[in-house]
């Protein structure tokens, strides 16, 4: 009985150190509270990155070219066009600020913009977030979390801090966005899959070499 209580108290105290009790990742493999920040290594200025992107929303499927370009440090433009060249949208992310530069009439709906802003923002905004408030090691990966309102966004890097491996966004109850991230170095991924777990919405990204 005492042993059981001691184990639970130990787990509880570990959680307090890294402030991550309410979140789903469990500190099974935690090696201690000293975890360096990996995502701080990501630069403020990224090279222009171009993806072939496909979006599946229920039975609807749409594909095109997604371009990321920094216009100034910490200011990133995300432009999505059809393969044949028509611009679907042009968004600007500046720190925590967001601006719709232009958007096609058919897509100009609040829920659509909100979803796209959130999903695309997850890929680039972490570079502007500063120091993560939550850090831990789990499954030989470094988890760094940011709490925003009722949600936590986790950025998961490999144990050597060489690249990001996944991102997940969760509420207190469940994970609702999961991003698989493949790439090396401190730049945008070579490919990524953004999955919404509470409704059928997926974005596939594959980097293009021009």
């Amino acid at each position, binding site marked *: 009985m005492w042993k059981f209580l001691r184990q639970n108290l130990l787990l509880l105290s570990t959680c307090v150190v890294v402030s991550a009790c309410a979140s789903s990742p469990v500190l099974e493999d935690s090696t201690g509270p000293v975890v360096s920040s990996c995502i701080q290594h990501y630069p403020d200025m990224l090279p222009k990155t171009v993806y072939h992107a496909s979006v599946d929303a229920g039975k609807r499927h749409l594909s095109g*070219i997604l371009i990321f370009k920094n216009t100034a440090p910490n200011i990133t433009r995300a432009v999505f066009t059809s393969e044949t*060249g*028509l611009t679907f949208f042009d968004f600007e992310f500046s720190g925590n600020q967001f601006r719709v530069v*232009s958007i*096609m009439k058919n897509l100009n709906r609040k829920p659509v913009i909100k979803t796209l802003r959130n999903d695309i923002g997850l890929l680039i905004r972490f570079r502007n977030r500063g120091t993560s408030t939550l850090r831990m090691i789990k499954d030989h990966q470094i988890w760094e979390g940011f709490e925003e309102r009722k949600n936590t966004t986790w950025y998961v890097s490999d144990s050597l801090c060489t690249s990001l491996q996944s991102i997940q966004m969760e509420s207190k109850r469940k994970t609702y966005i999961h991003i698989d991230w493949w790439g090396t170095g401190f730049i945008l991924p070579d490919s990524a899959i953004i999955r919404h777990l509470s409704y059928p919405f997926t974005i596939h990204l594959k980097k293009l070499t021009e």
Partner: protein
Amino acid sequence: MRNSLLFLLMFNTLPLLAQPVGFRKVENETAFRSGMQKAAAELQSIRADFIQEKVLSMLDDKVVSKGIFLFAKESKLRMEYTSPFEYLMIINGDKVTIRDRQKTNTFSSRSNRLFTIINNIILDCVRGTVLQNKDFKSEIFSGNKKYLIKLTPVKSELKDYFSHLHVYIDMTDFAVQQFDMFEPNGDYTSIRFSNRKDNVEISPAEFTAP
């Protein structure tokens, strides 16, 4: 006196501003129109390479893609993008097939208004019937070795997507060399043909879904 000179200068300059650089308005359109009609009547098919440049005006950047272009009368078209991404668009009458990295979709162009608009523009441009398209007001200019048709949308629905289009026509054979689609936000897409071969045999299988 100075004001009168300025006034005269403005009125003399305004017509020049309305015409594209290096081109002047065609005085007698009849010869041009009959040349276009004759070329359109003789055209049965086209096989060509194309280079597409999507110019992002505000980002001062562009995305270049390449591919193979096939056309067969009356309304069969195949645009196969081969670099830097693979994407296939086949139009066969009102049936459209799209194949991207993820999926192949076949649908009626009638179910997608945007596709109908773009299909009609591309088809009208390549088969030389663009002057008959009532959705646009046309102006004809001539330059060194080529004509330029400037198309301005008449319907407000089209104005959401395009501010105007430029279609470049070879003066010797009235073949379409290039067309540029300008969007209201200042971005534009230019599709330029090379290695063009007219009236070659093209298998009907090229215009069926893969």
